[in-house]
């Protein structure tokens, strides 16, 4: 085990996988000399050279599409989107091509493609650079969706993503890059997709959260516990596939569900979880599931406004208490 930042964990797995398999390569904006705006590809150019570490022009749809084609032709591209907000520019290659090719071609194609990049609040980047867009990718079949919240999960999920023969959207969070944690040294360390992490066991309420909101939720949970409320905190880690079994088992135990995320509340992934839990554990529910997410407005630049948009600690606490009728 080594203590690494979330950014370092990502960088190390990229390097290890590139060493292991010469078909793995990386491309994206400013990832070569600069090592990525957030440092996730730092050092790769020096070790692997310009053929496998490629600065792209600012042409998101084309370089994602180039990744799709290269994947179909036998490579394993890892494409960085500098901000996941820019996925909107590549939506055709992501949703009409990458996600559909295997099925549409009768199972006769593989698309081992990873699209990774960061998203979210935390740096005052305003409306077009602060969104959380992971939920959109759950609706269109064919893509897998990963959302690591710790350095270890970042490492383990990224390795799984790179070795998966399907396209994976890999969502990092800009405010997590500097966070630190233990990461196994094992270069075969993988976190399976579709296996939620029970961050903390508890008995009174199930809280499902991801990315930055695991940490933020844990702050609220600390205070709730000291008020005598026992919380089970679950990080699904991948949204597609989604480990409903773990979540449902927990709710059957606690009888209560709160979902918390930075993505907008309406049609955020908490909506799918709340609806599925209601289907699968209806008679166990002691209270209606509570959903927390960003308010339905564009992320504002001003910090006070930004804070007013995303769920705050007290709102998390209040939601938990509502499920307990306190």
């Amino acid at each position: 085990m080594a203590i690494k930042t979330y950014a370092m964990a990502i960088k190390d797995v990229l390097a290890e996988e590139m060493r292991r398999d010469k078909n793995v390569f990386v491309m994206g904006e400013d990832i070569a000399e600069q090592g990525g705006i957030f440092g996730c590809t730092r050092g790769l150019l020096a070790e692997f050279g310009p053929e496998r570490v490629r600065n792209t022009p600012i042409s998101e749809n084309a370089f994602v599409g180039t990744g799709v084609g290269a994947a179909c032709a036998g490579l394993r591209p890892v494409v960085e989107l500098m901000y996941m907000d820019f996925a909107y520019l590549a939506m055709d290659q992501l949703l009409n091509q990458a996600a559909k090719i295997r099925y549409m071609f009768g199972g006769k194609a593989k698309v081992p493609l990873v699209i990774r990049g960061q998203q979210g609040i935390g740096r005052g980047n305003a409306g077009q650079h602060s969104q959380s867009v992971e939920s959109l990718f759950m609706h269109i079949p064919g893509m897998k969706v990963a959302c690591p919240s710790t350095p270890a999960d970042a490492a383990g999920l990224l390795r799984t993503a790179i070795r998966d023969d399907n396209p994976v959207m890999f969502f990092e969070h800009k405010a997590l890059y500097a966070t630190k944690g233990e990461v196994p040294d094992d270069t075969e360390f993988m976190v399976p997709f579709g296996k939620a992490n029970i961050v903390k066991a508890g008995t009174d309420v199930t809280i499902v959260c991801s990315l930055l909101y695991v940490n933020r939720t844990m702050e609220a949970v600390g205070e709730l516990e000291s008020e005598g409320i026992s919380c089970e905190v679950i990080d699904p880690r991948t949204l597609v596939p989604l480990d409903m079994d773990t979540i449902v088992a927990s709710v059957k135990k606690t009888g209560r569900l709160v979902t918390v995320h930075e993505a907008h509340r309406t049609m955020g992934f908490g909506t799918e979880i709340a609806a599925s839990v209601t289907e699968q554990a209806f008679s166990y529910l002691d209270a209606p599931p509570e959903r927390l997410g960003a308010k339905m407005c564009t992320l504002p630049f001003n910090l006070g406004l930004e804070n007013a948009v995303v769920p705050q600690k007290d709102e998390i606490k209040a939601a938990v208490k509502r499920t307990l009728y306190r």
Partner: protein
Amino acid sequence: MIEKERLIWIYRVMNEIRYFEEKAYTFFTQNILRGSVHLYTGEEAVAATVISLLRQDDYITSTHRGHGHGIAKSGDLKAAMAELMGKETGFCGGRGGSMHIADLNKGNLGANAIVGGGIPIAVGGGLAAKLLDTDRVSVSFFGDGASNQGTFHESLNLASVWKLPVIFVCENNQFAISVPTWQSTSVKDIAVRAAGYDMPGFTVDGNDVLAINDAMEKALDRARKKEGPSLIECKTYRWKGHWTGDPEVYRTRDDVAAWMEKCPIRRLRAYMLENKTATAAALDKIEAKAKAAVDEAAEFALNSLEPDPKTVMDNVYCVPGKEA
């Protein structure tokens, strides 16, 4: 210059495509086929000539008007016709239909129902060719209409700065559905745009096998030598409506008739006869065989099974050990 054997290959494939499209049209009007069917009739010289120069391990990407490319690259008329009918024996097991013919094993990275959608995918083929350290090339077929998509620009630029072995083949049939090229496209010759990407551009008569071959040989030589991409514009014309149900408000019968006079197959035949590449009897025999092969493919497709609805959820994802 085209070697005799290749000329004959081109002639055969053009005839196969021609008969295939006629059969598809008939089946559509008889309600044996459904969906969006875009016929390649009149444009056969482009697919046949370009692909005659490729190896099986070279890549192509194709379009909604993709029967011709698919047939020329794979040579499998049966799988093509079965796919149009949505049968299990089709290229894509009936999941794709007319607009999605693909054959990864033979280098067809797929037709695309998104205009311009295949262009970056072909660049990916070129990048794979390079990183896998082969001399493969990747050809992207697309229409005049597609040349106004952002992907055209982004892909040509990317292929150029990375010196990828990609050949961009624009099939300028002068219309995008009902819109004439002049109404949507700011240049008369789309190949002019090559200069904006520092690559060679060729505008050729797309009904002339020799002219296409000439440009393609140059582009291919450049690509195999890893010198970078090229853009070839082939001016041609589609004889049929944009799709099988097109009211064709945008042109007259005379317009079509004038272009039918310029039939690329007849032209190639005349050339071959003149140059004694083959006798009339030999060419007739090739035609007859092409027709028979299409009939056989049609029979095969008609007799093929529909996919089992129980398999509908198969192959959304690739599951290790469960390959198609």
